[in-house]
């Protein structure tokens, strides 16, 4: 167990390191940098800015150094908790991101949790009541969830809410937007969470429900179930004690892979719903080549995913000892 843990931990750290390089380099890809972007903005609005000032800015931001030097500088600072400077917002990245990182993590994790909590019972019900009206309904919603991209669902729900005279978007009521954290603010947050969670989680839930239904249906047709039934075991006990446990396995073991999926879908939904999370900030920073901010958010999202996968792997090993011998790497 401990050797597996350390092997897996080392592997995770390597991946985290690689994602940090990737996050930094991808943001460097566009031609030019923040300063050239600034210069074009000045030029467009007809104002003059002299070359010396631009060069000075570039030197000040460290943009005149080779990319790998910039990377090591940034990475070393990140390790010390300094994520760099946001050119556009004129404040440290850590302050610019602020609560957004925590809120993103909260939304991601609660979506993950709710996805499973909802998908497993529906999958079980669908399989045990195959071809019933509820089963067809679940399948229909499932197909819809699969085909409807999150941002469209968000738009349609917002449209519906708007017509019903309800407010949509955001995570807080106006009163709490700028308030300090308090119990009331948390309660207000909880009231706003269900909509984004529903939207981000629907496609994942649809997916899991289908897998759960299919695997359970496979199990239900097996002989041991017939045997148990012939021996007079109560149906509920029979189902939950044997086939459900077997069918849960593939679902639980992919828990880590749901994370990139949720994070990925979340980014766009957050933008449409205008949530105070990292997605909209990433988008605006990409457009303005605010590189440290963009790299940091990209890296944060990858970090969240990779660490989440690691934790879920560890939990799995604790829960199901069989996994130890195969592992994800096998």
């Amino acid at each position, binding site marked *: 167990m401990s050797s597996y843990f350390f092997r897996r931990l080392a592997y995770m750290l390597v991946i985290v390191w690689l994602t940090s390089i*990737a996050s930094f380099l991808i943001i460097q890809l566009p031609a030019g940098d923040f300063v050239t972007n600034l210069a074009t903005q000045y030029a467009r609005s007809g104002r003059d800015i002299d070359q010396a000032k631009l060069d000075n800015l570039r030197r000040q931001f460290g943009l005149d150094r080779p990319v790998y030097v910039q990377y090591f500088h940034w990475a070393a600072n990140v390790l010390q908790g300094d994520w760099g400077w946001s050119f556009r917002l004129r404040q440290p990245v850590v302050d610019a991101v602020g609560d957004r990182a925590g809120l993103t993590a909260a939304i991601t994790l609660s979506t993950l949790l709710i996805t499973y909590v909802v998908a497993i019972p529906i999958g079980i019900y669908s399989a045990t009541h195959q071809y019933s009206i509820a089963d067809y309904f679940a399948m229909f919603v499932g197909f819809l969830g699969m*085909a409807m*991209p999150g941002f*469209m669902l968000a*738009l349609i729900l*917002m449209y519906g809410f708007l017509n019903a005279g309800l407010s949509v978007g955001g995570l807080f009521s106006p009163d709490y937007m700028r308030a300090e954290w308090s119990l009331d603010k948390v309660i207000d947050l909880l009231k706003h969470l269900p909509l984004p969670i529903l939207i981000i989680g629907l496609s994942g839930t649809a997916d899991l429900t289908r897998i759960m239904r299919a695997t359970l249906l496979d199990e239900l047709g097996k002989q041991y179930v017939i045997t148990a039934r012939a021996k007079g075991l109560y149906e509920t006990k029979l189902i939950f004690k044997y086939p459900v446990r077997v069918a849960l396995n593939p679902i639980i073991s992919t828990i880590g892979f749901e994370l990139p999926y949720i994070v990925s879908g979340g*980014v766009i939904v957050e933008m449409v719903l205008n949530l105070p999370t990292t997605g909209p900030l990433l988008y605006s920073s*990409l457009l303005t080549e605010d590189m440290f901010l963009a790299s940091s958010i990209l890296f944060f999202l990858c970090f969240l995913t990779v660490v989440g996968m690691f934790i879920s792997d560890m939990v799995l090993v604790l829960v199901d000892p069989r996994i130890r011998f195969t592992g994800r790497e096998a």
Partner: protein
Amino acid sequence: MADKLHPAELRSSGLGSASDAITVKKGHAELSAEERYYLASQWQMMWRKFRRHKLAIVGGAVLLVLYLSAIFADFLAPYPKEIRFEKFAYRPPTPVHLFDEEGQFRGPFVYGTTKERNMETLEAIYTVDTSAVYPLRFFVQGEPYDVFGLFETGIRLFGVEEPGAIFLFGTDSLGRDLFSRIVHGARLSLSIGLVGVSLSFLIGVTLGGISGYFGGVVDTIIQRMIEFFMSIPTTPLWLALSAALPKDWSIVRVYFGISIILSLVGWGALARVVRGKFLELRELDYVLAARVSGVSEWSIIWVHLVPNFASYLIVHVTLSIPGMILGETALSFLGLGLRSPAVSWGVLLEKAQNIASVAIYWWTLVPALFVVITVVAFNFLGDGLRDAADPYKQ
């Protein structure tokens, strides 16, 4: 035996009856269901299995219609995609009627509209003018267009006479017909999935094949690479990469740029399938026989191994096209993918980003409906193909 015999029963009926069926020489028409089952080639079996999947047939038919409309967009659309009806900005859809106000049958026609402006909100208000009746004409002469660069014609499937106008799905802020733009947009939206999938197919099969066929260090490196790609959330990656595309690129270059970006993410899963299959197949005797006979590694892979799991590849490819289509739509929706004047479903939806305008001009969401229909159709088709890929499995 009855005609509608289930293959499972046939299989359990044993070998004896099968060999009997083959030895008896009869005309094809006289063969019983059982005999036909045993004489069928693998592709026939697959087709038979596929045909039983009703939803897959429906999905396939829908896709056929969509792709055909994309190819013949100029003919199907009543107007060219850029033409602006300045008098008709944000005009709601014009329903096609069969009966007029008095309940008299007039054939398909549309009413004219009169436009007023609410002076407080400056919003245009269109009222239906039931006295102006414009009958729908088929195969009308409209704006001329090129037919695949061969010749020029102006024949369009339907249209109404001036000054009437037909906007099945309304118009956008510049008074462009949304229906025509959706039909034209299908060209980019539907093809980008195919191009992206072909790219990721190429990468996936090549790397997966190398990984599974040669094994060893190469295998380990490629597997780690796949895991790395699979643990990165796709959308942020897509966003960052497409933000990196130069703004001054032409439509064609952006189109291929986006396809490459989309395919970067999709190849990993395919490579895994291919690798697994290679690991399974390379140990078989016929591969050994081929190698002993001096067949090159390259032809062993492409001539002997790939056809063996081609059906799995087809299934996988079909099921990964919708992801690409959704990816393009999302990127263009955010303004990071294809950009105007290119027309794709995502570009059309870009206007719908503003929920306040969607609330008034609900028809600007119609392109989303086409995305959803396409994605569902691909999934149904893929499901059917998955069943058919292994026709022996019950």
